[in-house]
């Protein structure tokens, strides 16, 4: 088989392009001076790496209070948004899978359109809603906004899983005397679980990363991690702490994904030839 060196070279360059900023995120977390953002002092001497930002994070230094507060708020919002959007998304996917009527075509359009809308439009339209109802923006408006843009992604993920679902299993359960609730909780839900978990993970990532929609609906003083960071300037003294915190998050996710890969490998040995 003839291999194209050109395409492999482009792939290598693209991978480097994608990874250089990540590498720098890790490196910048060790910068000693948060104002100059440089490893060199004014005289041009190398000042060395510093772990002070990590120790400040772990000891809960006062200087990082606002940052850590926004970080925890992000986690709470993302967790709740994931739970709610998974619950709504599962029922929605089930309805879309099971029925094909006029109602479902409207339903499908409702679920699908947010996927092709730029974030900023969802953000501003929610802001308009809250303005029109004169609701004060804060925690609840952020949560509502996050659920709204997560639901569609969850539904699509679960629908993809439902396509492989063997509908005869439900009939079999009915034939064996199970009621609709029992069938749902003991047959359909366990089979759908991987899809729901995948959708939930997607929702969590989207929610914890969102800055555009949140910046419209967060109101004064309530900041999630991304909106807090985006409000920092280049010369904020705490910038290395942001990079350090991001490094910790990256490390945490990598470990989590690695563990889940290990567990899933232990549970089901891969079929030969795949």
């Amino acid at each position, binding site marked *: 088989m*003839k291999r*194209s060196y*050109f*395409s492999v070279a*482009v*792939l290598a360059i*693209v*991978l480097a392009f*994608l990874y250089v900023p*990540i590498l*720098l*995120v890790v490196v*910048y977390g060790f910068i000693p001076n948060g104002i100059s*953002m440089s490893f060199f002092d004014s005289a041009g001497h190398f000042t060395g790496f510093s772990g002070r930002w990590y120790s400040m994070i772990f000891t809960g230094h006062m200087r990082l209070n606002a940052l850590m507060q926004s970080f925890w708020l992000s986690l709470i919002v993302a967790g709740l948004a994931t739970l709610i959007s998974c*619950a*709504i998304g599962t*029922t929605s996917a089930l309805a879309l899978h*099971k*029925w*094909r*009527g*006029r109602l*479902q075509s409207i*339903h499908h359009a*409702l679920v699908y*359109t*947010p996927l*092709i*809308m*730029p*974030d*900023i*439009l969802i953000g*501003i*339209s*929610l*802001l*308009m*809603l809250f*303005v*029109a109802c004169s609701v004060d923006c804060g925690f609840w408006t952020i949560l*509502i906004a996050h*659920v*709204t843009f997560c*639901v569609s992604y969850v539904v699509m993920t679960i629908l993809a899983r439902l396509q492989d679902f063997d509908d005869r299993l439900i009939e079999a359960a009915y034939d064996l005397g199970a009621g609709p609730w029992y069938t749902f909780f003991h047959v359909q839900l366990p089979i759908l679980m991987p899809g729901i978990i995948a959708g939930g993970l997607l929702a969590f*990532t989207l929610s*914890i*990363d969102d*800055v*555009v929609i949140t910046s*419209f609906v967060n109101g004064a003083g309530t900041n999630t*991690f991304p909106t807090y*960071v*985006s409000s920092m300037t*280049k010369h904020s003294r705490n910038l290395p702490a*942001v*990079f350090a915190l*991001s490094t910790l*998050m990256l490390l945490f996710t*990598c470990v989590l994904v690695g563990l889940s890969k290990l567990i899933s490998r232990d549970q089901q040995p891969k079929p030969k030839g795949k």
Partner: protein
Amino acid sequence: MKDSAKPSRAEWLVTLPSFVWLVLFFAIPALIVLAFTFHGHTVNGGVGEWSLSTWRELVDPDYPTIVWKTIRISFEVTAWCILLALPCAYAIARLPKRWRAIVAGAIMLPFWTSFVVRVFAWKTMLHPDGWLQTCYHAYLHFKYWLFAWVPNVHVPTAGAGQANDCLIGIAGCAIDAAKTTIIDSEVAVVLVSVYSFLPFAIMPMYTAAEKFDFSLLEAARDLGAKNFYAFRKIFIPGIWQGIVSAVLMVFIPAIGSYVIPQMLGGTDCILIGNKIFMRAMQNRNIPHASALATLMAVSVFVPMGIAMWWKKRQAARDRKRLEVRTAQLMATGGME
């Protein structure tokens, strides 16, 4: 699967949670935005009486420029993403199966770091004293040095009549290059947008390329096609669906992008997204922001509509071709 015209009670019950949520927080807000555009604004940041004044204000000569700039930058970003993603998708799909999953994972991995933090990393990297700026200067110097030999090329800041003199040309350009920073310019916005959206271009193309039958390419080569010709005539049409979804996955967020131009574009690169945010949050002119949002929705849905119409037409044409071909075959009795 039931095909009942009238939804049953069970159907309503299962549909209701998501339906109500999305009507309340997606459909109604969109209608409110549309309604607000037909209102004036009040001085204290509220929404005034019904009027067409907002649409009249939109004739502001700045806006066509901004809309055009947004669309142009989005096209640029999309073009770069597709150009880079095509060889990548091809390369990944040709890897051994075990490596494919690893490389595809490696492409998505950077996205577990917060988007804003990544933009900040770029901001730090592109700092006027940073190493990327130095590279950019070197590139600019090289470019001007290259063009200094060419007469009749307009060289900025070099005085009139001196452009032919290469020494003065270089000196003049050196000054100009030193003033040109990447940050706070369109270059930075395009660069970081490509960086942020590239995986969304690679992924759909890769999934399409994975299903592509590569023996077709070998067949084409056996029949005498050059590598690039086979790539263009066989591979690209083969993964067409993936390319279309990649274009949409990049173009839509690029049109709506506002964080990247805000953090890296300076005053040089204000796009519709930034204008919407400014009008809504800083000037508190809600109707105006709504009108701009409507404008943006139009500039997203028109290309989308065209793409979908084109896809449908393409499918119809394929079907037609197949029908004609079948008719031909039937007419000749399968002998050709």
